[in-house]
């Protein structure tokens, strides 16, 4: 079939390749700069693209000045706890909202919807004051605190539960399962893809969050990777190779997870978008 106005395939590829280069170029530049000396990174004539000698000292210097193992642990603990809490509590509430009838259901679900419409910054001052009055600043608990429950997760998983056939529960009931057994043994395994999507979302946004860890864990040993970077930038703002080395160290864990689980990441985002 001849099409006059159809874009040639190579042209489409050309555009996509240019776009792809623009997408990864900052990361490549981050990596290249992280191995340069300060002189090389600021040399304009000639401009240096590749470091003449790969300077690992930038990394050892950054690792020496900052407690990265501690930052990795704090970030990992925050992400893991938020993922577990949001999945467990959201799945429970989502099932009840999707399938059970009980007084107050609509009202309580209204609370869930209401929370989703409000910008999160509105909760931050009181949440900070609560953590402060508990004497829990600069702890892992403080990092977890706003993510203990998830309105978004409840809404998302409710959509998944509502997509399951009703006959399943009737069959389970005939077999003598009570509601709890039906939920855990029959329904929960069927919304696995929803729970994976929620886990990925929660992990991604917890990992990227900057303001909350910056506010609540001011002690540098209690910081997360993101909030530590903000501090590091203030500390040595001229030494770009070292700043880039710190950035590489901060983004590498999530990047590795993404490379391994890219299918789950992308499908998680795609399916949840369709469900909201």
């Amino acid at each position, binding site marked *: 079939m001849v099409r006059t106005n159809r874009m040639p395939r190579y042209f489409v590829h050309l555009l*996509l390749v240019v*776009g792809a280069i623009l997408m990864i170029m900052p990361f490549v530049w981050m990596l290249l700069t992280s191995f340069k000396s300060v002189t090389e990174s600021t040399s304009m004539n000639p401009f240096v693209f590749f470091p003449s000698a790969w300077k690992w000292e930038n990394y050892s210097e950054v690792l020496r000045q900052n407690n990265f193992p501690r930052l990795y642990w704090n970030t990992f603990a925050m992400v893991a706890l938020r993922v577990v809490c949001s999945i467990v509590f959201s799945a429970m509430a989502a*099932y009840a909202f999707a399938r059970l009838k*009980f007084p107050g259901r609509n009202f309580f679900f209204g609370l869930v919807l209401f929370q989703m419409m409000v910008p999160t910054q*509105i909760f931050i*001052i009181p949440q900070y004051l609560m953590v402060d009055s508990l004497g829990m600043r600069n702890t892992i608990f403080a990092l977890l605190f706003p993510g203990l429950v998830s309105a978004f997760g409840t809404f998302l998983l409710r959509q998944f539960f509502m997509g399951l056939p009703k006959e399943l529960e009737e069959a389970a009931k005939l077999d003598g399962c009570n509601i709890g057994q039906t939920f855990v043994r029959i329904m929960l395994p069927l919304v696995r893809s929803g729970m994976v999507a929620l886990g990925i979302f929660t992990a991604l946004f917890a990992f990227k969050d*900057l303001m909350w860890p910056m506010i609540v864990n001011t002690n540098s040993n209690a910081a997360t990777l993101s909030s530590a970077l903000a501090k590091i*930038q203030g500390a040595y703002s001229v030494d770009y190779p070292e700043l880039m080395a710190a*950035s590489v160290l901060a983004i590498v864990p999530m990047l590795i997870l993404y490379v391994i689980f890219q299918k789950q990441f992308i499908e998680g985002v795609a399916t949840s978008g369709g469900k909201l």
Partner: protein
Amino acid sequence: MNKQIARRISKQTWGEWSWGWFLIAPTIIGLIVLNIIPIIQTAYLSLFKSGDFGRGNIYVGLDNYRKMFSDVQVWHSVGNTLLYALLVVPTSIAISLIVAVFLNGKICGKSIYRTIYFIPMVAAPAAVTMVWRWLYNEHFGLINYLLSRIGADAVDWVGSPKLSLISIAIIGIWSVIGYNMVLLLAGLQEIPKDFYEASDIDGASRFRQFFVITLPLLSPTLFFVVVTSIIQAMQVFDVIYMMIDVTSPAYEHTVSLVYLFYNNSFKYSNKGYGSAIVILLLAIILIITFIQMRAQKKWVNYM
């Protein structure tokens, strides 16, 4: 007999009720403590002025709001935030849509492209902004070097009050393209292929197909992407915080509502004023959402 049935039913209903309450309890208690009470508290705090060193709150009534409405910086931040949203949302959605349409066809390397375009989404904004700041560097940045190769003058991307918001918006667009693209691609795959085949037979051009089939059928997804993008853009903070210091000459031209909220609440420890600012943000977001819900009826087609 009847009595027995009635008792059994009520026992069963009671069982369902208690299971329902038990299952929602953690989430609802959490929401009340973490979100509902804080909203009331924030509204209440906005009526107070924090004393020195954040100690001792003094009731000032609506003074924070009066101060806010005559505070030039607040109006700047409202303007900056809206301008940022205006720069980021249409551009990023247009680019994501083009990429999604390209990738929706039979094209080789589809999943590789998808993977690459999504990468900025998994990187922490703090790290990403740092490398962009370096790319933007006036004297040693890669971007100005490339510009100098084609004979253009060096540009002060970060420090110039006129340009800095655009530079920030570019980072915002770059970060979000992959995410929107994945959502739109999922929407595109829902459109039945027969529609295109039928219009092929009718001899419709690709461009016409895009406007007559793709756009209307994609409009529910597009609506979702527009709404979430606007809400995200209205809450912009990380990139600006990492890029523009309070002392920068570009600060007034880039400070967003959330950045201003952060500075007032936690840097200057005036939580009362910070609360008033965040209530203003809430009001603006609610107004925009309301307008979108009304406009939705005009352009969104639900099949």
